[in-house]
């Protein structure tokens, strides 16, 4: 019972921090999804040189190993404390898996498939939206889901630059060695991450074609 005591005694404070946490996450993640997918689509168009997408994939691949706290610290240097630097840092940090997965996925599409579409008289935008995107939906979702989980976890660290969120409870709890307060920050953050991931996984199953899901199953059995 002891570990829940802070949550039971201060439900409003926990809810307030959870609310802040969700706002920071939602703002940074949704923007990252939109911008990340847009960038990936643009650099995968035939009129963009392969060198450009090569560079983007290499950069995003390498950036995945940068610690999140470093990104937050650097952004903090330019923008000072508050929610804004946290949102900007988390936005940048979420972009990385989204672009890396999406840009790589666009390249895995068999050129014969694109040519079949073109040869049947599909316009470039029909090829993109009716063929390319549906075919790589699982990879797109994989980046988006990774970004969401990382983002929710990293938002707790953003409390270090005064962004608010559940990190506040964790850091204060750490300072006073108050286990139940640390838990009151960590537990809702973990539950939030799981719920968001489950919802995204459901959305993925719902909008991905069965044909593609079967392909994946086939491959995973073969391995």
């Amino acid at each position, binding site marked *: 019972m002891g570990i829940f005591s802070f949550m039971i005694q201060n439900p409003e404070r926990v809810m307030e921090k959870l609310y802040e946490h969700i706002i920071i996450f939602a703002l940074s993640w949704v923007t990252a999804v939109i911008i990340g997918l847009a960038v990936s689509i643009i650099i995968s168009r035939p009129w963009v040189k392969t060198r450009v997408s090569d560079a983007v994939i290499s950069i995003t691949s390498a950036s995945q190993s940068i610690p999140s706290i470093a990104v937050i610290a650097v952004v903090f240097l330019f923008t000072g404390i508050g929610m804004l630097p946290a949102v900007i840092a988390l936005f940048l940090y979420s972009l990385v898996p989204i672009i890396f997965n999406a840009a790589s996925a666009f390249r895995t599409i*068999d050129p*014969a*498939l694109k*040519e*079949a*579409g*073109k*040869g*049947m*008289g*599909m*316009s470039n935008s*029909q090829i993109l939206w009716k*063929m390319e995107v*549906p*075919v790589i939906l699982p990879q797109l979702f994989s980046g988006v889901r990774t970004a969401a989980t990382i983002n929710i976890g990293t938002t707790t660290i953003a409390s270090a630059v005064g962004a608010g969120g559940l990190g506040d409870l964790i850091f204060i709890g750490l300072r006073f060695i108050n286990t139940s307060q640390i838990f009151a920050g960590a537990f809702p953050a973990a539950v939030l991450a799981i719920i968001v991931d489950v919802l995204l996984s459901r959305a993925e199953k719902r909008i*991905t*074609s*069965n*044909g*593609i899901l*079967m*392909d994946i199953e*086939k491959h995973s059995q073969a391995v």
Partner: protein
Amino acid sequence: MAIELINAEKTYGDIYAVKDLTMTIPDNQITILIGPSGCGKTTTMKMINGLIPKTNGDIKINGTSIDEWNPIQLRRNIGYIIQEIGLFPHYTIFDNIATVPRLLHWEEKKIRQRVLELMDLVNLDPDEFLQKYPSQLSGGQRQRVGVARGLAADPDIVLMDEPFGAIDPINREKIQDSFLEIQKEIQKTIVFVTHDIHEAIKLGDSIAILDEGSLVQFDSAYNVVNNPATPLVEDLLGSDRAFKGLALLRVKDHMTKTFTTLTKSVSPADALQTMKQHDTKFAFLVDGRNNKLLGVVTAKDIKKRRADSLDKLSKQSEYIQPYATLLESLTKLFSSGFTALPVIDDKNVLVGVIHMQTILDQIEEMSILETAEDEA
């Protein structure tokens, strides 16, 4: 809907992929483009629907230059069939076939009707396949779907880019046979790219041989085989080109339509009697309602194994399709050990019998022709 290429050229920098190509592709026939890799066959085909824009010259379809078409509209009006990997993995078979009609904004009801027609044409059961995805089908089935998709909007012209290249040899022969039967029905103007000379001879009404972007010979398949224009064409045909002549002769033109059939209800004793009357040592067991082939019954088996029904006595038989060639029949005859093969159409109906002797006579006739030619 004749396709005319008039001094058509494609250059990449200083290199000619296709050089000064002038040819008229005949209507309602299969025209093969063939040659060594890099000869410009695929480029030529893709220039027709604008997938590769031509550099010089002109290409006219039914008298109108392709420059006057919107390339997207042009492609929607020309069928395009590639290897089976070109099917959309996220679409059901129905949606795959419906692709072009949907691009053309047909009514859903008309699309459904057309898809059913096409499934019948390529001999796939709609109830079994329409809701499946490409990954659930075999390579041969997928290729049939690919053919149906290319024909969906009923285009007058169909371009086929090595469509059967990825299929194993046995199924390739089968799908080629079915394709010829389909073409007999639909009579499209087909431009067919292949690197396989057997396929070219088997399917082509006429064959265009290209080398380094130029046309080397363009003639009927028969003339190409019998009068190769250059050493390159001879090489392409191989040293056994006289034998390849057999690949130009179709089973349907050489099969006999007199043969003995029996149904399951006939008793073995009566069957023996019938065979004696018809002076034959074997007969085909067919379904009495639709003449579908069930197996073959031999007089020897009836005498030897006293079973009470023909069903138990019949054996599975090798068979051949009407559009298969005599060369394929010969191969099958050797492997089956029979001296005759039943000929069945796409729907398993027994339509004739091809005898070993008929084929041997043909070889003899052709080899005499060959010697006579050499002496002259």
